[in-house]
């Protein structure tokens, strides 16, 4: 028996090392693009070591037994009677207890690392909606940039203050690792410090309905200079757009996520396309036909379920309480889509 224990002991260690090297060389995680990501990957590495060792610890003696202790041809006797060993049982209860408590402690320390606060952090207000994202940047000279792209300067912590318009969404950029749900009626926060310039995507991680799968928007991490240039450009565009009704309308529908469902180029979507919408004859679910004029579009924004275009009866658009001026701006914008 002694000999078997020695062989198995050696095999367990060899196997554990091989599994760890294998998993490590495959590179299981995406690119590390934030300080939080490097903290989390440190914890992951620790877990991989534990998993490799424990997998070997169970599987090696199991497979070894199957081969070495298998019943020989013609043997009909039972094996040696061995009921248990209390000391061994106590050992493999107490020892794992200490190990898991150590892991829990390290997990708590690791969590604290990822939550390190930079008082200088840039605050971006994030809104999730079915099925888009909007990002509102800190105001400059009374003008606020609202975009459906998240631009971040590298090396600077950003504090995302997030909420949802409708159902629960979840903010996740795999390269940043950390994830946080957006809950209607409250503000949740997430701190990220990007460390690597590049183009990523925020992907909604909490099932949020029909088009959950496509609720993705670009996340661009660039140098502070590039970020500032983008901001200046956006501020100028916002300034210019605010001068005309159709400009204000276009900014509003982008910021409100309308275009997530209503295409502006005629491609089919969750809702009817806005291309050539104004003045179009639409067949409704009750069989009647309506002309998409000012009154109809106004009603469809305020009370979307009142008159539903045939073919879209199963799509529930939420009601939007825009002001009359805002709706007029949106209609002005829709009129330009020919």
């Amino acid at each position: 028996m002694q000999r078997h224990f020695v062989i198995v002991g050696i095999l367990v260690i060899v196997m554990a090392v091989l599994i760890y090297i294998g998993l490590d060389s495959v590179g299981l995680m995406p690119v590390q693009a934030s300080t939080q990501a490097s903290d989390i990957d440190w914890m992951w590495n620790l877990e991989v070591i534990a998993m490799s060792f424990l997998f070997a610890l169970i599987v090696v003696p199991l497979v070894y037994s199957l081969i070495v202790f298998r019943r020989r041809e013609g043997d009909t006797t039972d094996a040696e009677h061995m009921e248990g060993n209390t000391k061994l049982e106590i050992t493999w209860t107490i020892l794992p207890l200490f190990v898991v408590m150590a892991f829990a402690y390290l997990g708590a320390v690791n969590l604290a690392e990822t939550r390190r606060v930079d008082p200088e952090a840039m605050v971006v207000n994030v809104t999730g909606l079915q099925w888009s994202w909007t990002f509102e940047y800190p105001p400059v000279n009374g003008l606020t940039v609202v975009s459906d792209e998240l631009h971040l300067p590298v090396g600077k912590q950003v504090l995302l203050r997030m909420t949802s318009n409708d159902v629960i969404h979840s903010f996740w950029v795999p390269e940043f690792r950390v994830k946080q749900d957006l809950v209607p009626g409250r503000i949740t926060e997430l701190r990220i410090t990007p460390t690597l310039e590049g183009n990523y995507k925020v992907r909604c991680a909490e099932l949020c309905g029909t088009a959950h799968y496509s609720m993705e928007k670009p996340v661009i991490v660039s140098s502070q200079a590039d970020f500032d240039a983008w901001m200046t450009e956006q501020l100028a565009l916002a300034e210019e757009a605010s001068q005309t009704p159709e400009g204000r309308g276009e900014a509003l529908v982008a910021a409100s996520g309308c275009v997530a469902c209503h295409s502006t180029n005629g491609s089919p979507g969750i809702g009817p396309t806005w291309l050539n919408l104004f003045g179009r004859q639409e067949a409704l679910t009750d069989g009647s036909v309506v002309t998409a004029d000012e009154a109809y579009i106004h009603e469809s924004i305020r009370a979307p379920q009142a008159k539903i275009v045939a073919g879209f009866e199963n799509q529930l658009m939420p009601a939007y309480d825009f002001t009359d001026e805002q709706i007029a701006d949106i209609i002005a914008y829709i009129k330009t889509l020919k």
Partner: protein
Amino acid sequence: MRRLNSVWRGLLLLAVGGMIGYGIGLGLDLLVTGALNYSGSVASAFALLVSVTAFFFGIYGYRGITRGLVWQVVGTLLGGFFVTGIRALLGSDTIFGTFFFSEPAWVFGALTGVVTFMFGVGVVADWVKWARGIDTPEHHEDEPGGGKYLDVSLDHKVIGIQYTVTALVLIAIGGTFALIFRTELAASQLQFLTTTFKLFNQTGPQFYNTIMSLHGIIMIISILLGISGIMNYAVPFLVGAHDMAFPRLNAFAYWISVPASVLLLMSLVLGGFDTGWTGYPPLSARAPVGMQMFFLGVFTAGWSSILGSLNVIATVVRMRAKGMSAMRLPIFVWASVATSIIALTATQLIGLSFQLVMFQRLFGMGFFDAAKGGNPVLFQHLFWFYSHPAVYVFVLPGLGIISELLPVFVRKPLFGYRWVAMSSLGIALVGFTVWAHHMFTSGMNEYLRVPFMYSTLLVAVPTGVKFFSWVATIWGGKITTPTPMLFVLGAIIVFLLGGLTGPPNAAIALDLHLHDTYFIVGHFHDTIFGGFIFPFFAAIYFWFPKATGRRMNEFWGKVHFWLMTPSFFVLTLGMMVIGLRGMRRRIVDYDPALGFDFTHLLMTIAGFLIALSVLIFVINLFHSIRHGEKAEGNVWNSRSPEWQVPSPMPVHNYDVPFEVVGEPYDYGLADSKYVQFNGHQGEKHPVTAEGAQH
């Protein structure tokens, strides 16, 4: 021959019934909406109901399950029209809804349908008689042959098989849904579930959401029925009882799961639902009527779980054979008690949380509506307070089966019996304190997450005890590997993978990356396959001779194992790898730029191979009932009492009671016995209500 004819007749009526039902639904829809809606829900709903009913009518005639289903259809319509009538009288402007009935009418109709099913199938007949002062015999005589499985029986072994077969039917349905969406996922971009696809009033992505959600909940219900099946079948004869403590309650608990399954399937045609099996509001407060059918289906199936576990506990506490002290209980019975304690005390919470959303939808009560002062996160606490312990409900019986079968095939005692028994209770108790680890990203109190990390990691300790004991049991044994043992070994390794991938999710910061990804999907498929599916198959291969007096084919059993196990590794390891790299859960399409196409293709092929292996199993199962090799004695050379009497087991199990005179797993100890029969088998003893008390 007569049986074969009845199956053909059933299939013929299935087709005819489907057409008739479709016609009725189409007509009703035409009357209400004034348009012919060929791919619509109402026609599909009626086609589904009438065809299934006609199928059972063809096989079995108008009694038992057929009458139950007919009464359910009639009850649903009566309830629906009752509410519709009230709405018409009150002058409501929505008397009818998108799916013929309005939502409140569907909900009320579904409830009355469940009640009328229970009356129709006849499972409450005895209680009605008692209420009228009429006595009924302790047990009805079951008819010989297969017919008794389609009617109410009070025999725990019949009910056990009814549960098991129902579980297999649901696994087939849930598995079919999985194959549909795995086919869609084989490549990036939408293949056939496109935005122009239209079925049951759902577009492709909506249909994906529905079948993905139904895959989850139908598999969960099938697991609950599967463990009930094994527990019902085995626990009474393992403890030496002649039946369960409450045979009528036992039959009730089984039969209520049938209308519950019908309701879950109805949700598919009534607009579906897009929330996953978790049903989080506010999304579930906005989903189509199908959502309500899902809530009601789970709510109704919950009764089955609660009443069944009550029965198991009562049976083990009150009806054990003489001399069967706590530390001489078969280990599977310990696991059954542990699982029943959870099911009896936690299931109410999922019923409650779903009922609150139901009321939010029906009566505008804003429990989870932030605009009305409600809190969406509260739902998640209520939901997971059941749904995490439920995971232990799923796996504890399976782990019990592993511990029960291992000693038989290694010819050695179970190593550290007391520790294994106590670890089941340990897992059950610690399992109640970990629920919020599903909510690390939910926006719950940030600091409260830390104690939940500690409690979650504690679960690893009793689970570790089980693994170490299994390895120590196998070590130095004289091991044989017939099919049941193969599945036991597969279960250990698969459950090990599931177990080891658990602690990373408990580390909060790391979970912020892993949560809601395919890593989690892979992790829990490993725990469920290792903790339930593999042991479930092991148990069926192991106890099949006890039920039928024949063995399942060994060659095809091995084919089943060697096809399923590697495919399953490809499937779940694939899930975990792409999950770590950024594959989100519950999406019908993924970004091609992520480069997951090849892994997904492999996983789809693996999924189909698993389905093929299960198909082989089912054919083997049904073929062996009549044509399997005869096996009436102690086929596995087990010490357990049920193998000391001939197979198939007599109706009330043991003609003479046995006494426990030794330890259950003392393999290798000369002249030791676990049980001793005081008298000869075949010498008929009167079966008394007290069962094992004498």
